[in-house]
């Protein structure tokens, strides 16, 4: 009975998070980065003051972990072609160019820390491989545009 209630609370908290925060973010990649940023790198626990106030710390934490897994799963199953579009969208929504994004992401590799904790190594490798391919394709497109600006 208690477990069921708790599960319902987590579901409600997930909907709340999706409606209030995630809906305002454009693109799953940006949502994934946002959700990963709510996680403490040392403990792996998620913190969101507003959500914890509306529910409890534990329910809010579980809801954020669940949303993180869901969004990550969508990104994991996303074809590389769509990942390239997601990267472009992410760059434009952050007021940066995709050129800057590629340069910084290739150096810092932030995509490695946005993987959920419970993710298997196989899934994490698939995700990283796809993102790296998408970044390289984006870079190749930029180079083509620089070389042939009129045809772009």
């Amino acid at each position: 009975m208690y477990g069921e209630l708790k599960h319902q609370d987590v579901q409600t908290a997930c909907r709340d998070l999706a409606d209030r925060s995630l809906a305002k973010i454009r693109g799953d990649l940006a949502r994934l980065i946002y959700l990963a940023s709510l996680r403490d790198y040392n403990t792996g626990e998620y913190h969101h003051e507003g959500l914890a106030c509306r529910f409890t710390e534990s329910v809010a934490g579980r809801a954020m972990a669940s949303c993180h897994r869901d969004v990550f799963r969508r990104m994991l199953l996303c074809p590389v072609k769509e990942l390239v579009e997601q990267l472009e969208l992410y760059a434009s929504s952050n007021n940066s160019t995709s050129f800057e994004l590629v340069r910084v992401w290739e150096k810092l590799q932030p995509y490695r820390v946005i993987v959920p904790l419970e993710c298997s190594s196989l899934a994490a490798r698939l995700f990283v491989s796809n993102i790296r391919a998408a970044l390289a394709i984006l870079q190749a497109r930029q180079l083509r545009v620089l070389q042939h600006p009129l045809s772009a």
Partner: protein
Amino acid sequence: MTILCLCLLLSGREGRDADQETSAHLEWDSLTPDVSARIFDPEDWDFVGSEASRHLTRQFRRERTALALDWLRAVRSQVNQSIRAHFRAARGNADLKPADEIRLWLDFVCFQATSGILYLMVWTYGPPRAAKLLEYSQELAGKLRQATEDFLPAGHHVAVELIDGKQQGKS
């Protein structure tokens, strides 16, 4: 004959490696049909080939092949564990039906052979070309799950159920 020998060799080596390696890593998503569909899907394979440089395409395809082989090792390891648990449970069962056991054993041998060939195909030609055989191999894994269902406690079925999910989704 050569293929059969290679299958047997692979089967032996995988059993040792994968049992130790995968049990620690298998969490919520690695064996689900949609993840394997992504790994084996030719769409990314072709897209990267058409958009990226030759060097990057080679690197991407190498990574995909390694992922497909690791996925296959993990599935084989899970099926092996289920079958071992089944035979352990069957030993103490008084209502054992020999015909069913023989059928199960044949399915298991068939699965081992198919997944061994699949391993070689992935290794040689890459995951997209092996996608058809993958479906057949997954069907066999599903049949093995059905067959071991009566003997095992629920926890042992998880991995094979994940594989079987694809067939249920299709039908």
